[in-house]
């Protein structure tokens, strides 16, 4: 009964959605409204104005840098909320975490340990080259975070957490927020507006280092946050 009612409701809901979709301009046409207002400017002037050959990075870090600054604050706040929800003292039966939940086959362990350096190199490349090739801070950071989670699964969290001791971790988690604040205030002191990058003049050489700094902050912070969320959920004190 409940299922039938739900299905009827969904079919009812699909009618206006499909009707709206049928009125939209065809997918892939170049005179699509999303492609006509601000985007031509980004595509033509982007490399010149921002120093990013990758226009997606130019949009994220430069044209919409405030958005991204707010967003790294969102993910940091989410981490704090996860800690608040999970890391309260638990009732008495606090059991020791086993090294890993399921026995790990030596094959998995070998593969993760062998691939780890290559994965790290790839993500570092993505982070520091994000302004000119596909990739960027979020992508590279998430790759390192996923690697830390994989290592925790095969080697146990205790051993993986030794890579990032607690004192270091506490500073890496807000890295993105702190880096945005540092670069933003520096931009304000030098160029008059928060988070502004040089467009021309004697400080032009600072532009790419600024972008790279922000990317590194996002990457390091993202990796630490993703791994810490996993550790907090697992119960090993993120």
């Amino acid at each position: 009964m409940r299922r039938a009612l739900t299905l009827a409701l969904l079919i009812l809901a699909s009618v206006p959605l499909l009707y709206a979709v049928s009125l939209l301009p065809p997918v892939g046409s170049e005179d699509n409204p999303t492609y006509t207002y601000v985007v031509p400017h980004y595509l033509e002037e982007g490399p010149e104005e921002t120093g990013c050959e990758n226009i997606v990075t130019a949009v994220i870090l430069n044209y919409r840098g405030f958005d991204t600054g707010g967003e790294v604050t969102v993910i940091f706040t989410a981490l704090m909320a996860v800690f608040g929800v999970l890391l309260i003292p638990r009732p008495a039966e606090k059991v020791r975490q086993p090294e890993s939940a399921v026995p790990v086959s030596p094959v998995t362990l070998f593969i993760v340990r062998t691939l780890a350096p290559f994965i790290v190199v790839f993500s570092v490349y993505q982070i520091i080259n994000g302004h000119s090739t596909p990739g960027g801070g979020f992508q590279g950071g998430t790759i390192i975070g996923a690697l830390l989670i994989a290592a925790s699964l095969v080697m146990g969290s205790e051993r993986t957490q030794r890579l990032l001791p607690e004192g270091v971790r506490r500073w890496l988690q807000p890295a993105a927020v702190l880096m945005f604040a540092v670069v933003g205030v520096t931009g304000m002191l030098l160029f008059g507006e928060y988070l502004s990058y040089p467009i021309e003049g004697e400080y032009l050489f600072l532009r790419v280092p600024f972008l790279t700094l922000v990317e590194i902050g996002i990457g390091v912070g993202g990796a630490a946050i993703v791994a810490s969320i996993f550790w907090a959920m697992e119960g090993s004190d993120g």
Partner: protein
Amino acid sequence: MRALWTNIDYVASVILFLIGLYAIMVKGNLIKKLMGLNIMETAVFAFVMSAGIVTDGDAPIMGAGAKPPFANPLPQGLILTGIVVALSTSALALSLIIRIYRQYGTIESDDLWGVE
């Protein structure tokens, strides 16, 4: 009808969205509900991304040898932001579910009606 066929990418997002909505409404397990929410988020991302498609468009990276047309960079940037926010909400929801399980020993919403 023809318009629906040329906009098949959008139609796929609508179907994905409804699948997610179904999971939220019908499934009792909180984790399955969260999965439904994630499917809905993915549908919205796919919808916005398809609005940025340009037929035969290249990646919007202006290195040597780049030639127009380029795909629309704006939806890609917005959705990158959106994915990270979706990650944050999923993490928070999952940790709330873990907490509910520790407190009440169940994550079936039907069983949770009765508990104090």
